[in-house]
């Protein structure tokens, strides 16, 4: 978590490179008082996390990083121009949204599909405030819906995994069996089977995003049964998957065990001594999307009522290439190839199990 704030600060000088910049750049030091006169100075933006919190190593964190980046770029101070509220349980969403409304924030994000209903209600109640939801669609004129084509990214890591595996057996660990995680699953399986229709993909759900023990246990079984690459889309449960892989790697560095991370580049999580078990990660750039929408809102171009689906073509969904040793050029090639097929529309990636079945049958 400390690392991310470093990143933000080093970037801040060079970071803002487009349209609105001149003012902010020149007055960045004493900018706050000076900025009052400018058209965007009283713009403020905030987000409500779901129960994960802003350092969940996942999309909440990513969203917050996007917001911080946006704030830094525009010379805002945390707590004034931009802020977040963490939810501890589902009942907190609505009050948290309202708290931010009452504090006068102009644009408020709800991070995660779980906030769907509450965003919808609060947006109806406060037509003058702008809202945005991540990972779901709310049809209200003052709500911008941000979704991601996770299935596309998952497809690509599926391709990478199929290329990498030596056993032709790979695994998928999901958090809670639900429509969102099913997207990851469907994309992953489709990608792998596209490369090698005979590949075995074992899918298992832990029943929760906070069950590292179960994650470790499932991973242990998978690796035991000859699976050498596991893609996890399971939040905190994935920690257990990483730990099992690292454990195996630690006692036998020659062992072929890999994890594919999710949401952010999870390279760091895979470090064990001099080795790293993170093969790649399916990156979902919530930060880009969040900053993007904030930018538009600030400029008076808030995409209210629209659904913006970020995907491969926006680079908002991508595949990490950090582990250069494992992620070989050959794999890179193949992934690029499939990426082009997807962006060009040649391949339609399935989003759920039914679509997957059709897709696999057509291979």
């Amino acid at each position, binding site marked *: 978590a400390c690392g991310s704030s470093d990143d933000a600060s080093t970037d801040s000088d060079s970071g803002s490179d487009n349209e609105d910049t001149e003012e902010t750049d020149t007055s960045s030091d004493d900018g706050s008082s000076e900025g009052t006169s400018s058209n965007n100075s009283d713009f403020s933006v905030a987000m409500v996390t779901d129960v994960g919190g802003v350092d969940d190593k996942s999309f909440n964190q990513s969203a917050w990083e996007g917001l911080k980046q946006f704030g830094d770029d525009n010379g805002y101070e945390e*707590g004034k121009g931009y*802020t977040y*509220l*963490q939810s*501890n*349980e*589902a*009942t*907190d969403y*609505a*009050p*948290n949204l*309202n*708290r*931010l409304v*009452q*504090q006068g924030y102009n644009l408020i994000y709800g991070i995660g*599909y*779980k906030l*769907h*209903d509450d965003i919808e*209600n609060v947006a109806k*109640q406060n037509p003058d405030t702008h809202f945005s939801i991540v990972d779901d669609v709310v049809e209200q004129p003052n709500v911008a819906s941000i979704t991601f084509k996770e299935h596309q990214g998952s497809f690509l890591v599926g391709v990478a995994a199929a290329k990498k595996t030596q056993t032709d057996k790979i695994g998928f660990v999901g*958090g*809670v*069996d*639900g*429509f*969102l995680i*099913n997207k990851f699953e469907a994309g992953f399986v489709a990608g792998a089977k596209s490369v090698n229709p005979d590949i075995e993909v074992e899918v298992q759900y832990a*029943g*929760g*995003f*906070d069950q590292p023990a179960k994650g470790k246990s499932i991973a242990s079984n998978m690796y035991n049964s000859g699976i050498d690459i596991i893609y996890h889309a399971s939040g905190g449960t994935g920690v257990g998957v990483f730990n099992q892989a690292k454990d195996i790697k630690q006692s036998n560095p020659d062992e072929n065990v890999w994890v594919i991370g999710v949401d952010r580049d999870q390279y760091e999580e895979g470090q064990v001594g001099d080795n790293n078990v993170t093969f790649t990660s399916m990156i979902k750039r919530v930060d880009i999307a969040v900053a993007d929408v904030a930018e538009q809102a600030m400029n008076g171009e808030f995409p209210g009522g629209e659904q913006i689906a970020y995907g491969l073509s926006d680079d908002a969904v991508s595949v990490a290439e950090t582990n250069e040793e494992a992620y070989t050029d050959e794999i890179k090639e193949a992934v690029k190839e499939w990426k082009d097929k997807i962006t060009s529309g040649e391949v339609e990636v399935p989003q*759920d*199990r039914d679509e997957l079945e059709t897709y696999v049958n057509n291979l």
Partner: protein
Amino acid sequence: MLRDQRFINVLIPIISVILGLLAGAIIMLSFGYNPVEGYGALYEGAFGNSYFMGETFVKVTPLILSGIAVAFAFRTGLFNIGVEGQVFVGWLASVWVGISFESPMIIHLPLAILSAGVAGALWGFVPGFLKAKFGVHEVIVSIMMNYIALYTCNAIIRNVLTDRLDSTDRVADTASLSSQMFYNWTGSRLHWGAIIALALAFVMWFILEKTTKGYELRSVGFNQNASNYAGMNVNRNIVYSFLISGSFAGIAGAMQGLGTYGNMFVQSSFTNIGFDGIAVALLGGNTALGSVFGAFLFGTLKNGAGSMPLVANIPKELVDIIVALIIFFVASGYIIRWALTRFKREGK
């Protein structure tokens, strides 16, 4: 002297709350926060305007019910640590009934609530029955039943109530507890459940203190041998106790399903309504009225805490610490009582 005692009994929780808040202030000070700002934010967040007041009640409502569920069992000598799971199944049952059909509200709503109660009772029946029949410790079975409820409800939402979706439809208006009137007043999710909760707290008090069944249950709670000697069926009373406790818990679930949310969704972990109910019951000395106050305190602190990071930049975990300290102080009533009597004697 009796009057004195009663006065002290009321005084102890008040002093405990004050001590807890004081301790919280000291912690804030020592970590460089401003307690006045902190508590100001907490107050604003809980009662600052009609919206927050409404939301505070929304938090309090299920806690009253989970609190009396725990308290009821405790009073009859049983530890129902399974309220959490009973809340889940109650929630599910109420939503199930709520979305499955439409009928006049006068039938639909009570039916939905009732089914929540029945579901909770059934869930409570398992530990109760196993305790009565085989002497299996209710705590283990209750804990296991919690997990079973969590996973089963999720599966039913995904596979039975929806076609692999994460949340159910909204319950029909005829089964909904939500209130346009409250909404217009407060803009919050405040719903009629608050009244149901209070009414059921009264029911719990009435059952325990005024009915023959309550007499039996309390008697069994205190002394099983004597109860048996007096002709009461101890095992049956254990089961009854779990049934009643479970139905309160189930209805706590209905508050969420028919009121706060109007639907049910897949959850990746416990709601804590049941576990918090333990604290609520114990804060309230396992009485109905006490549980109401306990729930109120708890809900207020929890809801108000949400504003602390935003307004005063104080981590809201601090409130958990304060809650814990208040529970300690209430529990340690003996020492407060001792100090009070000491103080009084010295004063004379």
